């Protein structure tokens, strides 16, 4: 353990934390709920970002309900996982939101799913519907997957609504609900209600239906754009927990495919941003260029999306010389066409003027909310999982991480544009250095009740998977997709800004919910409601 890490651990020990386990770059501490707040504060002051927190029903293992707080020290590349056990009879923990604002959502989710009460803050249902019965906690082990609790159906919207347009409506691609409170043309506050498509994937993986082998395919379907990120993160977490050594060639192949996925995702986003601003030519051309990457993905993996090549211990498909050749040719075409398109798009006056200086997220707010990905990098936070916690083959390549400080919509656009060019360079380096050898381990063995945290830099930012292995299947699988971390930042971006910027700002975090986002506007002065509609255009990735 390095010196700064050692010092931090000493400090945490003094505040009541006990070291349970150290595995590689993961340090597991356990502490009582009384020490929780001071520990969280110490970690935050040390520069740690909250990755997520997860409630786990550990009663079958050790008779307690535990809340895991996963902190990441980017600069040291170390994860500190703090476990706070509570008994079923006295299941409560204090909130750490005053010290770590980023904990807002995951605390509420733990409350909903495991039934640990969070004291010292206003609480509400987050991931479960408002009329979910009390005392029924889906992620507890005594809640069988096939249970369907009886609920009274209550209409979700208050009576003042003139025209109900959501959360469920034929015109909306995915249910979504933003409430904007305005004063004239200025936004004063924002309330977000989501999780209308909470699919219970974490619970599904724990059900009898699934085994370790099948979960990668489930994980791939968490998101229709960054599916490979999720399946890679899952297998990485399991491999870490079980100590499975993946052959080098497989790691390279995974990295190559991950970067191909980044290309398609950013090109998709660029097209959608253009469409949102009324520049359909940009949309069509961006997606035309993206088509090259989709065909490439199909040629490399067998499918345009949901590649299905990740298995525990390696990959299923190899890359032969023809495929590598085709990859390089495709990349050359994509690069050439992309550079031209970016130049054209940035010279359309409406795009420049509407994206500059709008939707600003300050560095301070970005750090407090632990935002991830291009949103973080556009606000001056130098965070990239590929650099901070290198995984797979990223140690073998050199690349730039674009950093901007303006924090506006244009900065987020430019970060993604640069990342496309960097990804192309990364893939070229990976192909150049591709080692020989097998693409998967012969066999693997996964002992139960091992823990691991894995993180991957998805196109939208850091994706975190936390695994506690079980027998034949995961005991607990916590997925924190990047948008989960970024949506709370929208409140900061939209407050005090003109209403007309809301559509583009919401789309600028590259939200992983589909096309039409619904925004309800309350005019505080007149008390009237207005509604705007936003088009984002990406398939679901909510958790």
């Amino acid at each position: 353990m390095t010196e700064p890490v050692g010092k931090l651990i000493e400090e945490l020990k003094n505040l009541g934390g006990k070291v349970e386990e150290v595995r590689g770059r993961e340090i597991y501490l356990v502490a009582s709920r009384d020490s929780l707040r001071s520990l969280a504060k110490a970690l935050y002051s040390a520069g740690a970002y909250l990755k997520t927190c997860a409630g786990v029903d550990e009663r079958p293992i050790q008779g307690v309900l535990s809340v895991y707080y996963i902190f990441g020290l980017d600069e040291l590349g170390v994860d500190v996982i703090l476990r706070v056990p509570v008994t079923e009879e006295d299941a409560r923990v204090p909130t750490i939101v005053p010290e770590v604002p980023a904990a807002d959502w995951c605390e509420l989710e733990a409350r909903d799913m495991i039934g640990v009460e969070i004291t010292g803050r206003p609480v509400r249902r987050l991931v479960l519907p408002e009329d979910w019965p009390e005392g029924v906690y889906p992620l507890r082990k005594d809640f069988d997957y096939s249970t369907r609790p009886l609920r009274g159906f209550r209409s979700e919207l208050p009576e003042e609504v003139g025209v109900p347009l959501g959360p469920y409506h034929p015109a909306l691609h995915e249910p979504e609900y933003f409430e904007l409170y305005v004063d004239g043309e200025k936004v004063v506050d924002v309330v977000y209600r989501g999780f209308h498509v909470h699919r219970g994937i974490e619970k599904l993986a724990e059900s009898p239906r699934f085994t370790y082998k099948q979960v990668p395919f489930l994980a791939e379907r968490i998101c229709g754009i960054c599916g490979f990120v999720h399946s890679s993160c899952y297998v990485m977490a399991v491999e870490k927990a079980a100590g499975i050594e993946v052959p080098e060639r497989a790691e390279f192949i995974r990295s190559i495919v991950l970067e191909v996925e980044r290309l398609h995702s950013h090109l998709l986003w660029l097209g959608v941003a253009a469409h949102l601003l009324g520049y359909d030519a940009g949309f069509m051309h961006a997606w035309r260029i993206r088509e090259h990457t989709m065909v490439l993905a199909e040629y490399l993996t067998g499918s345009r999306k949901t590649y299905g090549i990740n298995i525990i211990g390696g990959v299923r498909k190899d890359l032969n010389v023809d495929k590598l050749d085709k990859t390089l040719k495709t990349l050359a075409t994509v690069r050439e066409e992309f550079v031209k398109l970016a130049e054209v798009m940035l010279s359309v006056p409406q795009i420049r003027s509407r994206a500059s200086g709008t939707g600003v997220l300050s560095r301070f707010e970005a750090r407090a909310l632990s935002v991830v990905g291009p949103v973080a990098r556009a606000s001056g936070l130098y965070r990239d999982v590929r650099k901070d916690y290198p995984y797979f083959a990223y140690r073998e390549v050199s690349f730039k991480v674009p950093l901007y400080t303006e924090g506006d919509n244009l900065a987020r656009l430019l970060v993604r544009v640069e990342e496309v060019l960097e990804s192309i360079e990364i893939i070229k380096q990976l192909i150049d250095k591709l080692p020989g050898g097998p693409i998967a381990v012969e066999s693997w063995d996964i002992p139960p009740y091992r823990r691991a945290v894995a993180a991957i830099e998805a196109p939208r930012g850091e994706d975190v998977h936390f695994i506690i292995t079980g027998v034949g299947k995961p005991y607990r699988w916590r997925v924190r997709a990047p948008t989960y971390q970024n949506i709370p930042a929208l409140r900061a971006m939209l407050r005090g800004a003109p209403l007309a910027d809301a559509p583009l700002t919401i789309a600028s975090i590259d939200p992983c919910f589909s096309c039409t986002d619904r925004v309800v506007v309350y005019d505080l002065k007149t008390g009237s409601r207005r509604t705007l509609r936003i088009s984002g255009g990406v398939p679901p990735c909510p958790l």
Partner: protein
Amino acid sequence: MSLVKILEIALKTGRVTRRYPAEEPLVTPEFRGSIEVDPSKCWGCGACVKVCPPNALTLTPSGKSLVLEYFVGRCIFCGMCAEVCPAKAITVTKKFELASANLRDLRSRVVHEVLRCSVCGTPIAAEAEVRAVVKASPVSEEYAVLCPRCRKERFAKSIGLRVGAPGGGPS
């Protein structure tokens, strides 16, 4: 003005859309479509059923037979079934134009005769599976037609004969 360059780009590119279905769709050689199970090769062992993530393949007893059913509606076209099949009976085709107005068109089945124990009559496994196992390994056909319990009994009795225990000898 650089934004006018889009016209130049468009002129150079031409048209990229295709008049599908009048023109052929673009599918690479690696594309994974629906699967086909060869009934003459299939053992009815259920390895594919075990590995199938969405439960598109099911193995259910039906009267005197064992039915392997493939429901395309659930298939995610991962091809894991083809990978694990010991009989190499599953091929992954390039078919993706699978829509039909009739739900029945989406289901296909391979019906297996079930081998019953020659002594007690309990069903053992599909005949095809037993046949394949006998071909591949040095198991005497006489044992292959017994269910595990009867097999154990017979084995114990034959050992008994060898060592001279009472009641020994083939039953």
